[in-house]
């Protein structure tokens, strides 16, 4: 097992007014899961569902409010930035916006060299070697790209650089936060394929955060579904797509169109409304206000049950 997350919560304080009361945005609440070495996970949710917060908390870019994170058997929940140095080398991050994730006044070479300098890896010559090799690995010719500036590259090329930067220290875990959502459809496939290749080659674990269920099937071993800060369902990819158990997952699957000319004749059965405010979320199951099958029982937080091997659901009425 590589990563173990137990009852993890992350709340953000917000202050209203100068002397006002402090409220909390309960972005992630009570999340538990494990990831194996070399496994790839898709973490799916709408914007504001807490999926990005969860990813960043795992990377310790945020301090957890409560709960526990274990990485490779070591508890990293409360380590200081200094003690985290080794952890930074073991993890990588690929972000959504390829244009914003590169320091604009650095060359591609410098961008890739920075993690190495910061972590005091190699001599000048060795670092050069490492950067050139990693560029080749993401299929960018070092001769052509090393000394270009980010604005001279296309979105797809930049995302390759971002992947290179994430894996340059050969980490055990990479978190990819919506890595393709800003790219055109034709390029998306390219980047997802690259991820797959790299993951197989280096045998690293990947958490692929996305709002788009349709890209996950090509990629992940398991899918986690988040709604309003809760992890509502997790299951192996095929199982989840075939037998979604949580009403929210079902709605999500229903909402996504495939290209099909007959779509225009049908209405999609999706729940109305929008996700609740996380400052003052509903008691119990957070999907309750929109859920077609909710009852009073749902005012209590449902436990996570395993309805088939590896298929966990957080719903009172899941079979």
């Amino acid at each position, binding site marked *: 097992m590589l990563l173990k997350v137990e009852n993890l919560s992350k709340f953000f304080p917000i202050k*209203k*007014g*100068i*002397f*006002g009361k402090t409220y909390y945005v309960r972005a992630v609440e009570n999340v538990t899961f494990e990831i194996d070495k070399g496994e790839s996970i898709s973490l799916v949710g709408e914007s504001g569902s807490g999926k990005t917060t969860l990813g960043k908390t795992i990377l310790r870019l945020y301090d957890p409010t409560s709960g526990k994170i274990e990485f490779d058997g070591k508890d990293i929940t409360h380590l200081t930035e200094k003690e985290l140095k080794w952890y930074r080398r073991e993890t990588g991050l690929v972000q959504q916006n390829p244009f914003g994730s590169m320091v604009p006044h650095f060359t591609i070479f410098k961008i890739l060299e920075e993690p190495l300098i910061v972590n005091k890896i190699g001599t000048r010559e060795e670092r050069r070697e490492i950067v050139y090799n990693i560029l080749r690995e993401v299929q960018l010719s070092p001769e052509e790209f090393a000394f270009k500036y980010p604005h001279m590259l296309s979105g797809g090329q930049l995302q390759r650089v971002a992947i290179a930067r994430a894996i340059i220290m050969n980490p055990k875990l990479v978190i990819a936060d919506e890595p393709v959502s800003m790219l055109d459809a034709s390029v998306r496939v390219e980047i997802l394929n690259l991820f797959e290749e790299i993951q197989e080659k280096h045998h690293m674990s990947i958490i692929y955060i996305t709002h788009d269920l349709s890209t996950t099937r090509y990629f992940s071993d398991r899918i986690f579904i988040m709604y309003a800060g809760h992890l509502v369902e997790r299951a192996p990819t095929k199982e989840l797509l075939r037998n979604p158990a949580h009403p929210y997952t079902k709605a999500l699957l229903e909402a996504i169109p495939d290209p099909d000319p007959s779509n225009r004749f049908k209405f999609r059965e999706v729940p109305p409304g929008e996700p609740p405010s996380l400052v003052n979320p509903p008691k119990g199951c957070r999907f309750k206000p929109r859920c077609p099958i909710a009852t009073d029982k749902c005012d209590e937080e449902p436990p996570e049950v395993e309805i088939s091997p590896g298929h966990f659901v957080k719903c009172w009425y899941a079979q």
Partner: protein
Amino acid sequence: MPPVVKVLVKRALILFVIVLIATYITILVANVGGYIDDLKKKEIEFQVAQAVQNNPQYKDLSPAEKTALIKKLAQVEIKRQGLDQPFIIRSFRYLWDAITLDLGRAEKMTSDSGSRSVRIIILERLPQTILLFTTATVINFFIGLFGGLSLSRKFGSFLDKLVIYLSPTSAIPGWFYGIFLIMIFYTWLHVLPPGGLVDYPPPPDPVGYVLSVLKHMILPLLSWVVSSFFIGIYSNRTFFLLYSTEDYVEVAKAKGLPPRQIERRYILRPALPPIITQFAFAVVFSWSGAIITETVFNWPGLGLAYYQAINLVDVPVIVGITVVFGYLIAATVFILEILYGLVDPRIKAGMGEAL
């Protein structure tokens, strides 16, 4: 208390604390040289001496005895007023005096009506300063606003380019233009007075008085207008052009709104908060420039009083005027915040929500 009032009271309190701190800094600065203390002691000695001289009871004392008596009484008075106390305690008393505008007596200056009270000196000069600079700022503001708006309609025209090319002229401050305006309109053309508030002697009838004041205001006003004319129009034009690239302006255009209405409801209206800020800053900036402009034009306002106080090294007046400037700026900022709340629904909502 309605929420908005509560918020405003809170803001007013914060601003007051800020004025307090700023005044305290002024006092610290002005006192490091020990000026205020020496001054107060001198004033006490003077008052005691006067009292002794005028008191028939002491008429028969010899000069030496008188001097000794004066010294003794002065010491008592200094002690009574606490001038022998450590500076830190006194500094807070000065702060209290300054903040309550209990500004004491001027060292050398007298007001136009002959008073030595710093408060009267300031109160006599304040209206002229407000009159001149508020007028100047308002004129500039509207020139900039409407000039900018009409120029933004003529984007790319000759006039547009001309204004862009001439905007560097505003790197020269108003008072500096003032020197040349005096040269042209007074020295060469003899059509306008070089300075002052009214003709001498002042016209007896009110209408004549007002006209005379207006005549004297022309050059100072003109100097400010010339200085900010092109940059005012240019920056407003650019500002409106930027605002007109907002998506909702395009929507308004697509909706078929007439251009004037787009300008009014979709460009000017959302741009109001920054426009008001710009105006408030212009007002604050104008206070700051009062000293030099009033000196150039010999305009009897606070700035000129300040200049005169500088030349006479009259510290109570200097500190007093500094405090008054602080109050003026704070008041401007406060009014700005009220206006902001009125024109921006987001802030209005924030004000209600804050409670």
